[in-house]
Every structure is written in C-alpha cells, then in structure tokens.
C-alpha cells in the first residue's frame, strides 16, 4: 500500500488551499452532510437560478480527503445545469465504487485523483461526503 496513492499532490493542494470555502451567498440553499464515525460535518451552499448552479461553496470540518473533495466538487459543478450536475454525482459515485468511468466528463482532471481513495476502503466515505450533500441539494426529499 503506497500512501502517496491516497494523498496525491493535487488532493493536498485542494486540502491546503481549498477553493470555494465560503459561507452561503444571499438566496442560496444549504445542505448539511455528515459522517458520524469521524465527526466530519460539511455544509454545501448552492445558489440555484433557472435550474442552474450559479454558485457553489462549502464550509465545515473534515479530513484532507473530504475537504479536498468538497473543494473539487464545488469547482466542478459551478455553472452547470442541475441535470448535468446530477449526472456528475452519479458518475463520481460509480468511480468511487471502483467502476471504470469516463473521467473526462468531469471537465476537471483533478477529480480523477480521488480514484486512488478506492484503494483505502475506510476512506471512501470521506471522498463521497460532499457529493452526497450535493445530491441531497439536487434531489430534495419528496
């Protein structure tokens, strides 16, 4: 097991310099997503207008993997139509389940780096945490 597969440089960069780490903008919705096993708690803030994610930010606490993943996720979905963002949620979920997916669809090379997390089963939930929050925001409970 090579730990560098988990802590890829690009992941550490997003962890140490998170993008879009900011509170909610006026008019945005906030979704809480948490992992009771480790105490990670992330809030995803989405500003949605005309079925489009105008802005995506996050706040909260977590490990390097969960924060880096939140940072990448907010970058990736900003400006996307809700439908497209949801497609990315499913794509990410498949990737984290070890399936071969077309990572080009993310339009962000760094997201592929999270694939290395699948080699560390105990940490997969860290990577998916922010994406689960996004999913809750895109599919409100009926």
């Amino acid at each position, binding site marked *: 097991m090579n730990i560098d597969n988990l802590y890829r440089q690009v992941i550490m960069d997003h962890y140490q310099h998170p993008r879009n780490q900011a509170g909610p903008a006026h008019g945005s919705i906030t979704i809480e997503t948490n992992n009771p096993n*480790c*105490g990670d708690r992330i809030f995803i803030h989405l500003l949605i207008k005309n079925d489009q994610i105008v802005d995506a930010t996050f706040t909260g606490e977590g490990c390097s*993997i969960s924060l880096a993943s939140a940072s990448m996720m907010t970058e990736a979905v900003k400006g996307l139509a809700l439908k497209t963002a949801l497609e990315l949620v499913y794509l990410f979920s498949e990737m984290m389940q070890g399936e071969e997916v077309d990572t080009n669809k993310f339009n962000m090379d760094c997201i592929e780096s999270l694939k290395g997390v699948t080699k560390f089963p105990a940490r997969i939930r860290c990577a998916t945490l922010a994406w689960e929050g996004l999913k809750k925001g895109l599919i409100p409970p009926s």
Partner: protein
Amino acid sequence: MNIAQDFPILYQTVNNCRLIYLDSAATSQKPLAVIEAMNEFYSKYNSNVHRGIHTLGTLATEKYEGARSKVAKFIKAKTPAQIIFTSGSTAALNLVACSYGRNNLKPGDELLITIAEHHSNLIPWQQVAKITGATLKCLDLETDGSLSLEKARQAITTQTKILAVHHISNVLGTISPIKELAHLVHAVGGIIAVDAAQSAPHLPLDVNDLDVDFLFFSGHKMCGPTGTGVLYGKKDLLEKMEPEHFGGEMNNLVEFHNATWREIPWKFEAGTPNIAGVVGLGAAIDYLNSVGMQNIAEHNAALTDYALDALAHVPELKIYGPQKNRHGLVTFNLGKLHPHDVATFLDAEGIAIRAGQHCAQPLIKWLGASSTARASFYLYNNEADIEALTQGLKNTREYFSV
C-alpha cells in the same frame, strides 16, 4: 515473559510492517488459549445447554456454567447467579435501563450520568427518561475531564435514583472513584450502575468492596470473543427485575395464557445463548488470571505513563485529559491534522489506532474537538510499540508538512 507470543494475530505484517496494535480499547486481541477453547467446543462437544440429556449436552452445560463461576470469581461476586451473560456491555446496560430503569423511575426522579459516558451508557438512559418522565441530569466533570467526589456531592440529591457512570473513560482513560460514589448515592437511597467495559480488562475488580448495584462489561475487550458480555447485579435487585426477553429456557411453567420465570440468572437468558463465546470468555478469564490482573494493571499503568512522556516530545501534539490518574490509553490530536489522516498514515506503517468520536460525541464536543485519535494499550504491548507510535507521529507531521 513475552506475552505477545500468546497472541497469534500479532505475528504478522500489515502493509509490509510489523503489526503494532494500539486499539485494544475498541477490542482486544485473543490469545491462542481462547481461540483453541472455542475451536475445541465446536470440534468436540458443541451442543445446546440446559436441555440435552446426552453426554455432549451435559459437557456443554458444564463448560457454560463453569464460565459463569469463573466470571463470578473474577469480579468477586458472591454467587454465580449474579452473573448474566449478554451479547456485550451495550446489551447489559440496555437490560438494566429497560427493566430496572423503566420500572423504578417516575416523574421527578433523577438519573445522573456524566458527559463522558459512552453512547451505550447515555442513549438507553435518554430513552428511559423520555418514557418514565424522570430527569436525565449531568454530573459535571472537572476541567481535566476527571470525575470528582466534590462535583458528585453537588450533583447527587435526594431525587437521585440511579447514578450510571464509567469506571474508566474510553476517551480520557480517567478512573472514577466508584467505591466513594456508591457510598454517596446509597446515602440518598439511589443505586449505582457502573460501566466497567474499560476497567474489567485492566484492573482487579471486587464488586463487594466497590459496593456497586450493577456492573457490566464486554468479553471482547478482555481477550474474550466478540458477542460476549456480562451484567453483574446485586441479588435482591436482580430477583425483583423483570426479564426483557422472553422465550425458551427463561421460563418455568408455561400455560397458554401465562408463564412464570426461572430463577436468576436464567430468567434473563432467553433462547440459545452464545455458548462457544461464553466458553471462550471462560478461557480468557483463565488466561488473564494466569498472567495476574495486578500485573496487567501495573504493566498498563507503566505503559500509559511511558506513552505520555514519549508523546510529549512530538511537536504540536495535543493530549486530552489529565496527565495523572489515567489508565490504558492516550487520546490526542496532531496539530490541525484530521485524526483520520493521522490514522491512515500510521496504518501505512503497520500501526493501528482509533480515530473518530469514540462513541462519545457529547464528550468530544465538550473537549472542543470534532474528532480525536486514540492509542490504547494492553498486556501484549510494550515500550517498543510506543516508540514506533512516537516515530510514526513524527513521520506523519513530516509527510503532511505541519
């Protein structure tokens, strides 16, 4: 004496490094004697207990009830009838809370616990308070996380019916003054229930000297198999308590509309019990006795002191809880690093620690943390393990450049 050689699991490499197991507070490893005892049960005399007239049934019953006597002696209970086998501490506590708690509490009564309790010694009481209308009250800790008699005197009132506290905290390693607490709560007519999940593996226990009303622990944290636990209770309390589970083997006379219960402890053990597990627990107790509980206590106390000293040399390592009067574990955070990152890094060096909230969310919040890392020790650990942990933490800092 090399204790580690009795534990086959310790002789392996994890991620190409020697396994250094520092998570015994979650579950301990098992000596060969326990594994063999369970193997022997299944290969030689597997059979149900208390009902078979045949030879194997008699043997299984002897072994099962023999383990009960061993547990009774281990904690110095007056009779084996006061030992109820459960699936673990959680089930034992639920039995006390649901049966004793629900039937003895009314609105206005107070249930006293601390913020340091494991979720299993908190949530059942929350539920009982909601059902009975009793008040769940918090016995405040000292600023270092220890439980003091001074604070206990302030919190215990004539309304206090049940005091449920940890003997050793699974997060801070602090040791509660159980005997004195029992005295205080008895003086107001209340009872004390003690979570001994972390103390039974480590300290010699004497339930009569401590004068506790209920005490419970898990077999798997004391070299025994998972799925085993013990509830000890004072005889008169157990006799008055109603069973929570109903079915085979717990009953006496059964008619179509009514049934009567067997005597203690069997009225609390409905259905086929975890026979192999209990046999394993009996072997675990034999093993612990062969090493000596006093020796184990001293070994772990020395190791904990050694760890506190060694870890003090790791820059930016914050240790939670007091420097003294703690046993068997050290809980910490390394700078701003998340404990999961620390645990993953250490795991790559073969070092197993726990990271997270340790089933004690209110305490973690009280400590001002969102999660912590914990290294816990047992009889098979030694100073070299602590040195490896210390070096591992220094390497972690370097890797994450903190």
